[in-house]
């Protein structure tokens, strides 16, 4: 009971954090002064949540790969459940990143989509994890499903950096806000201190959101195990 109420307060905290981040992104953060049109300056406010979801989505896939690896080493189905829960959340996060990125790109780059390294890598990552979930759906036996998923998750995760490098050999137009910017980037801007604070708060809020979603999803997965056990019990009691 105690654990459950802890999770409840965490939910409340997350909701508050998300609302605070929303306020900061939409109201508190100043406009990016260097962007020429009002539409672009407004669209720039997509950036805070877009980046937070993108980072957290990547972390979700790291958790999937690590969960798979730990399953292969420890042979405990709990790790597989964690990997599965994380992949599902990560896929939704990445979908959101792709759609909102497109919505930002239209006013800024004047196109919905371009085969830029980051865009390509994200779409390939999306395909990889959609395939991961399809694979899980297509295998009945839990232990075999866990093994296949772990192996495929590992392959997917390791091929992503190579995909990124392969497309980096092209020129990029995606702005790099943190770290060194690339030449020819369009839509970049200087990150003023209030903007940085906003980004950090959104990042924190979205990360906490991911963690609680993962906890809830994992609990649901544990319930699935209980259901299986009960079914097994009923079946054996008839024999």
């Amino acid at each position, binding site marked *: 009971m105690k654990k459950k109420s802890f999770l409840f307060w965490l939910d409340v905290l997350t909701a508050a954090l998300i609302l605070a981040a929303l306020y900061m992104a939409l109201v508190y953060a100043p406009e990016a002064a260097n962007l020429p049109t009002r539409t672009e300056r407004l669209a720039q406010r997509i950036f805070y949540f877009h980046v937070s979801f993108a980072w957290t989505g990547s972390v979700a896939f790291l958790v999937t790969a690590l969960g798979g690896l730990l399953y292969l080493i420890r042979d405990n189905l709990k790790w597989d459940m964690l990997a599965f829960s994380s992949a599902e959340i990560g896929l939704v996060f990445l979908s959101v990143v792709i759609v909102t990125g497109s919505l930002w790109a239209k006013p800024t780059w004047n196109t919905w989509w371009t085969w830029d390294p980051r865009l390509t890598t994200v779409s390939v990552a999306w395909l990889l994890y959609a395939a991961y979930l399809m694979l899980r759906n*297509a295998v009945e036996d839990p232990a075999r499903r866990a093994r296949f998923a772990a192996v*495929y998750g590992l*392959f997917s995760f390791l091929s992503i950096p190579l995909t990124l490098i392969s497309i980096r050999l092209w020129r990029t137009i995606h702005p790099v806000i943190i770290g060194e910017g690339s030449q020819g980037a369009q839509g970049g801007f200087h990150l003023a201190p209030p903007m940085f604070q906003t980004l950090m708060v959104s990042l924190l809020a979205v990360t906490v959101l991911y963690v609680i979603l993962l906890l809830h999803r994992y609990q649901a997965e544990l319930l699935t195990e209980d259901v299986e056990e009960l079914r097994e019990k009923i079946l054996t009691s008839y024999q």
Partner: protein
Amino acid sequence: MRGSLNKIAAILWKDIRSEWRSKEFFSAMFIFAALTIFVFNFAFELHISNRKAVVPGIMWVAFAFAGELGLSRSFALEQDKGSFSGLLLAPGDRSAIYVAKALGNILFMLVSEAFLLPMIMALFNVNLANTTILLTVLAGTIGFASVGTLISAIAVNTRAREVLLPVLLFPVVLPVLIAAVYLTSGALNGASAAELAGWWKLLLTYDLFFIVLSVMVFDFVVEE
């Protein structure tokens, strides 16, 4: 070590002989890839100016489709006839099965490519007989088939395996295909060796890295 080598040779020889008798893989791979090339030939009205730009892409799409078709049969035959358990029961290291199957797939792909390349050269009137391109075909095929063998071992044990194999395979081998297309196109358009060095590193890293990883995890895939 010697035992493993014998096992690899035995499985590879068995696959080659059964293929030699039925020519099942080869005919399907070759005809499907040839059809792909024909379709592209009609879809793009090939003017002299854009030939060199599109041929590398067409070539690798055709190779990838042919390879995928071959991979889908790689374990399926054994799974259907139930002889895969026999392979698993054979003494020696299980990764030997992977190595033998991967070598077989690389070989079958290379044979179909050997027939497809002259066809592409004739249909599109480009010269592909060039050391860089041939080495790219070799390295690309090794990367594609080595990862593909592992994934086909996974896909064959699932429901809807014919659908699942391409869905699982293509996003993972994308770096190989991108690098191979760029190397081919670079060689066609006379790029210098220094310009292509980055792509070679990428392709060879992928090949090496994923072969090692596949050998390491194959045990988990076939564990029963």
